[in-house]
């Protein structure tokens, strides 16, 4: 198997290297990919069409918003899949009603204090990343991951159950579902108002401002939806992986 | 000749027995009503077939296109002389076989009789479908349907033997039809741009070269393995595990005759007799058929099991039909087509008798039948008449077909074939006469049968007497089969 794998890898590598000679130079602005009207349009027209300076956010949430919706779905799928694969339902399912047994392991003072200080800041930063994704790097995914990471940090520093007090399993699912519903909701709203799916422009009937502003606002809403889902699922994946699906205690 | 009638009747003929399955299944709990349904369907079917007879004899064809299934291909029905001849044989014998099976199945108290009658009806639909097919595709469709519908009949006993027999049966039939006929058909379809409709004088000439023609001819000849041409014959003895009515109707009449019918159809309707004659391909086929005739007759001599002997005899007789067509002469073709009918009546009588003996005495082997004629005189007389027909001795219908076949060999000057035919007739006599002879003429102390042995179930006896009678009548009055065969020959040979 190893030799076979090696041969396959070498062949693939040589093949790819062959094609590489044909590539345009690295960083060449005139390469087809960079010169084609697609990327030109994104760079030059984004702001006028959506009033969003961050082209990546605009392309992500609007021009290719359909992709992004499914990107969120991928995350959601992973979350559900991991619950389906790993989660062991049983005595632990009433866990959320019980008082967490914190006495078992006393958290380290330094770690505890640091986390106390850090977690609110992390969460604030996460909110900032989500909200400011239009103007700076960031957006729903990054913000969501960071927000989820704050809960993971909490679970690591204290224990899983403390974190689960904030995000019990049913709330995780609800949050994740709500996130996708927010996203798809914008699409469906556009559908109901007579536009195509995810056509935020038509939402100007509901949102203040012109068509461009409607797009900008919808993107924010969509990003918030993404952030919901990502936060919830990241934590869900972690808590399943860390507790081997039993949701009792983490690592 | 030119004016063809478009009529739903051929479809109806096929549908009748298919629809009969419904009442048969529903009435499964009440045997009398169930058999009644079978008979009603049988008579309706026969009536419909007969109702078309005058039209066909007048030289008009009946056509109906049921369903355009592919852009240039449809499930279509067309009744012509050859098809009519075959349909007449099959539908009339269905009624008689039903009568016989009532006797046989009840006499032996067989299980799952409802299933038996249902699939019997389906098989008949498929047989008639083959008879009335207007193109190769429809023919193939019904051919496959027949193979599958008869499988439960062949394996009716559901024991080990039936299993083996059924397996051989399907293996041979499906392998050849999927492996040979299907590709050949698709090849023809491509070469002729979608034409598969049978035409009186064939349609292949001009579309393919000699090598292709030879390959196609062999594919199609062996592909219809139901015809039992060697080396694809061994399913037939294997299938003799079936209950006798099945053997009788399906393996003396429907299934094997469908095989030869398909071959005749392909020779005449696809290749065209003239095309075959031009390429001189008939000789190859006639040698194959001749070989089969001699070998199978020789094997039949060695068989002790009566039904197996009959089976090998059938293999030989089927090859007569193919040989007749392969002679590519008017007489040969006429004889060949007549032989479909004549052999059917003769052979079914023999099978009926074998079944009746088995039902009454439980004996399967010829060596155990010494002296049986005294106990079952009607049966054994019928058996004698049937043998006459199969051997081709006057007083039975088989004489006429053999007569024409012999004329055909003389006509082409293929004396080798003449010799083969005569030899095989001698062999036929050699393996049939001793049975009848020993059944009647033996010393009383040699007789293996007690006094209490009697004739089989009355229904069975009635059936076999009827067919024996029909065999005799066909000698005196070979109509309408002769006219049909002759008209068909005229169609194929354009003279």
């Amino acid at each position, binding site marked *: 198997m190893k030799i076979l794998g090696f041969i396959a890898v*070498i062949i693939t590598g040589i093949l790819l290297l062959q094609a590489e000679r044909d590539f345009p130079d690295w960083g060449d602005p005139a390469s087809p990919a960079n010169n084609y009207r697609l990327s030109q349009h994104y760079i030059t027209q984004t702001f006028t069409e959506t009033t969003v300076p961050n082209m990546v956010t605009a392309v992500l949430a609007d021009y290719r918003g359909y992709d992004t919706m499914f*990107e969120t779905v991928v995350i959601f799928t992973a979350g559900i899949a991991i619950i389906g694969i790993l989660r062991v339902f049983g005595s632990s399912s009433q866990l959320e009603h019980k008082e967490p047994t914190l006495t078992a392991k006393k958290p380290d003072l330094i770690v505890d204090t640091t986390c106390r200080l850090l977690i609110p800041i992390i969460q604030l930063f996460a909110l900032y990343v989500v909200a400011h994704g239009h103007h700076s790097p960031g957006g729903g995914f990054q913000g969501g991951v960071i927000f989820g990471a704050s809960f993971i940090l909490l679970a690591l520093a204290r224990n899983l159950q403390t974190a689960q007090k904030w995000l019990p399993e049913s709330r995780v699912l609800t949050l994740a579902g709500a996130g996708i519903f927010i996203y798809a909701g914008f699409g469906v709203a556009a559908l109901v108002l007579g536009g195509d799916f995810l056509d935020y422009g038509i939402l100007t009937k509901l949102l203040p401002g012109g068509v461009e502003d409607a797009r900008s606002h919808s993107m924010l809403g969509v990003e918030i939806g993404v952030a919901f889902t990502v936060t919830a699922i990241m934590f869900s994946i972690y808590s399943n992986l860390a507790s081997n699906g039993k949701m009792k205690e983490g690592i | 000749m030119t004016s063809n009638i478009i009529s739903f009747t051929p479809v109806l003929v096929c549908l009748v027995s298919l629809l009969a399955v419904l009442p048969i299944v529903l009435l499964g709990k009440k045997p009398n009503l169930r058999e009644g349904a079978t008979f009603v369907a049988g008579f309706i079917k026969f009536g419909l077939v007969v109702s078309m007879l005058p039209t066909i004899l007048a030289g008009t064809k009946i056509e109906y296109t049921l369903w355009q299934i592919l852009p240039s291909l449809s499930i279509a029905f067309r009744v012509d002389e050859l098809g009519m001849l075959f349909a007449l044989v099959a539908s009339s014998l269905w009624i008689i076989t039903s009568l016989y099976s009532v006797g046989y199945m009840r006499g032996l108290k067989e299980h799952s009789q409802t299933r038996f009658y249902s699939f019997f009806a389906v098989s008949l639909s498929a047989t008639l479908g083959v008879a009335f097919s207007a193109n190769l595709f429809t023919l193939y469709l019904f051919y496959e349907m027949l193979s599958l519908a008869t499988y439960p009949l062949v394996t009716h006993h559901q024991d080990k033997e039936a299993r083996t027999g059924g397996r051989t049966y399907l293996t041979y039939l499906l392998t050849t039809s999927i492996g040979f006929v299907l590709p050949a058909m698709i090849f023809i379809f491509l070469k002729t741009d979608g034409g598969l409709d049978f035409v009186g004088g064939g349609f292949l000439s001009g579309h393919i070269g000699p090598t292709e023609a030879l390959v196609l001819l062999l594919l199609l000849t062996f592909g219809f393995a139901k015809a039992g041409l060697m080396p694809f014959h061994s399913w037939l003895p294997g299938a003799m595990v079936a209950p006798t009515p099945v053997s009788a109707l399906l393996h003396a009449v429907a299934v094997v005759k469908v095989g030869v019918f398909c071959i005749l159809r392909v020779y005449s309707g696809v290749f065209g007799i003239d095309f075959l004659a031009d390429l001189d391909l008939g000789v190859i086929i006639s040698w194959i058929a001749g070989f089969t005739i001699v070998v199978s007759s020789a094997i039949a001599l060695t068989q002790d099991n009566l039904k197996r002997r009959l089976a090998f005899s059938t293999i030989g007789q089927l090859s007569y039909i193919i040989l007749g067509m392969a002679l590519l002469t008017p007489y040969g073709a006429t004889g060949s087509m007549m032989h479909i009918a004549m052999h059917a009546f003769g052979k079914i009588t023999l099978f009926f008798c074998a079944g009746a003996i088995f039902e009454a005495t439980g004996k399967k082997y010829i060596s155990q039948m010494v002296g049986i004629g005294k106990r079952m005189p009607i049966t054994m007389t019928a058996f004698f008449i049937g043998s006459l027909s199969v051997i081709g001795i006057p007083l039975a219908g088989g004489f006429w077909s053999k007569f024409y076949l012999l004329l055909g060999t003389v006509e082409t000057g293929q004396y080798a074939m003449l010799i083969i035919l005569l030899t095989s007739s001698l062999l036929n006599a050699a393996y049939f006469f001793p049975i009848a002879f020993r059944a009647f003429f033996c010393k009383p102390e040699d007789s293996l049968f007690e006094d209490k042995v009697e004739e089989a179930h009355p229904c069975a006896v009635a059936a076999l007497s009827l067919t024996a009678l029909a065999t005799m009548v066909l000698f005196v009055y070979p109509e309408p089969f002769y006219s049909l065969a002759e008209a068909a020959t005229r169609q194929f040979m354009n003279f």
Partner: protein
Amino acid sequence: MEFLETISTKFNYWIYIIIMMIGLYAMISKNNLVKKLIGMSIFQTAIILFYVSIGYKENATIPILYHDQVHGAQHEEAGDQNELSNAVEEAAKEIHVAADEQAEHGLEASHVDHPSSLEINPDHFANPLPHVLMLTAIVVGVATLGVGLAITQKLYGEFGSIEESEILEQIKSAK
């Protein structure tokens, strides 16, 4: 140095292939399931590197319009640039360079009435499209990794091992 600089025009593509092949080899021939998954992640990031390399343009900045250009349209956004993360700050220095260049060239202007007339030279911004695609790919990568790890844990629960050969042996002996 000249030589190295010419190499560097394709260097990224070479390295991406090397990394990708390392990952692929690990996926195919590592015995440990976690190792396979690490290999898988490396494999996927290599592809992301390839895409990002497509989108790179020499002397171009990050695909975010900077203050000067947006200015006039949305006053309230002013000063945002300063709050960016490290990477962005670094890039922000380049922005001014790019802006100067743009002023010099005065290249094609796209005239749109609303909200303001902007003059944007596409050559001054990295191609945003590959970035967008790769955001998706990263997310897919982490999702796959998560599912893979979950399966690994389930396998460990069932067979008590995360070595493929050991698990296969157990299956064989169970037969």
